[in-house]
């Protein structure tokens, strides 16, 4: 590799990857065909940094540690030469050495996924999105068997007011993909997040707060971008036979799945 190319190279799990100036670690990784687990990221939309599944470790080679380093003195093991960052918001910088697909990081990601599952009502057997759900596919990818934590069993409002789109907040993971798609792509600003802490929830920017009174249309990206079963097109559930759903045919770690997932009105086989 030429010296010039070296200046535009990061290393992920030992693999050298070229990046363009301005790319995040996530952008560079996806462009190179390297999967970093993620839920709230979608190429083309502004990064969000809420799901934390893309947490990676960067070993900064210019950081030197000494025995007096206070981090060494903590009773917990701290990898003093590395720091955890969100790959979706961290700019790629030449020379970064990044750990991604490690048992430790995947265990942390599994815990995060379990937190997302127990925080809502993710009853996959009755969900129209099962088999097409990115949250579920990520959980499969990470080998999640159970929720580990006590269930929150929240009581959240369903909005079925719209003639062709429904909103089931039980499954919302607050990724804000719909918020960003509506604002940045559809130019409508239909959705927002309101409330603080565990009370944060998806709201509709209409006078009544109902989807029916918003400008949302089925052709909007915001109506299709939801990675879970929170925003659904009405009367199109259970159309794809088990065995031919998105994640029956694909692994979540495949690159370029965004197009497949976004074009869900018609199945990829058809």
């Amino acid at each position, binding site marked *: 590799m030429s010296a010039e190319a070296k200046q535009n190279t990061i290393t992920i799990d030992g693999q050298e990857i070229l990046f363009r100036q301005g790319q995040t670690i996530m952008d560079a990784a996806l462009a190179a065909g390297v999967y970093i687990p993620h839920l709230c990221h979608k190429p083309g939309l502004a990064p969000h940094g809420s799901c934390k599944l893309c947490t990676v470790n960067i070993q900064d080679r210019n950081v030197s540690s000494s025995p007096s380093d206070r981090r060494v003195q903590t009773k917990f093991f701290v990898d003093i030469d590395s720091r955890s960052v969100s790959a979706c918001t961290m700019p790629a910088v030449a020379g970064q050495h990044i750990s991604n697909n490690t048992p430790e990081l995947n265990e942390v990601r599994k815990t995060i996924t379990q937190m997302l599952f127990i925080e809502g009502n*993710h009853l*996959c*057997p009755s969900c129209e999105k*099962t088999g097409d759900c990115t949250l579920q596919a990520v959980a499969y990818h990470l080998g999640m*068997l159970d*929720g580990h934590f006590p269930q929150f069993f929240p009581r959240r409002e369903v909005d079925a007011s719209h003639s062709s789109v429904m909103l089931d907040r039980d499954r919302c993971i607050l990724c804000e993909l719909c918020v960003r798609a509506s604002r940045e792509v559809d130019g409508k600003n239909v959705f927002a997040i309101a409330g603080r802490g565990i009370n944060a929830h998806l709201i509709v920017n209409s006078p009544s707060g109902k989807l029916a009174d918003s400008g949302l249309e089925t052709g909007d990206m915001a109506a299709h971008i939801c990675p879970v079963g929170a925003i659904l097109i009405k009367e199109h559930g259970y159309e794809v036979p088990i065995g031919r759903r998105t994640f029956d045919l694909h692994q979540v770690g495949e690159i370029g799945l965004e197009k497949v997932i976004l074009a869900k009105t018609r199945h990829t086989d058809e």
Partner: protein
Amino acid sequence: MSKIRIATTSLAGCFGCHMSFLDMDERLVELLEHVEFNRSPLTDIKHCGPCDIGLVEGGVCNAENVHVLREFRNNCKILIAVGACAINGGIPAMRNHFELRECLEEAYVNGVGVENPQIPDDVELPLLLDKVHPLHEVVHVDYYLPGCPPSADEFLSVLGDLLEGREPALPRSLLHYD
């Protein structure tokens, strides 16, 4: 060699996990050379004796479920939560959206076709809990077998691992929640 003792039960379950267990078809014959069943809907044994493995389907929805679950935990070396209901409450946990009284009044007082409306209150009947809970919120669970229901292959995978003395490791291809 003595046989591995297995107990099974259905709490707030639909018996679908047990049906899926039976879906291993003729492979049951070979399995029965290695295991014997203690308390189970498939046997006539009324209480769980000392066992190696307890398979529990269904969440916990009433007081009797709690007693049975504790009996299983006290007698089984390895307790396995089988199916979506046992793992996160499952579809029955959708009643957690409502007050228990609302549910009882809908079924026994205001329901269509109800005659002599009254909420059953005989002491023979176990009281419902205010919410449906997964097993691990009541007792310690050693292993989870997801799916609604888990496939027969999943049962064979986990039992095969345990019979061979291995830590259960469900293959990715058998992992599903639906």
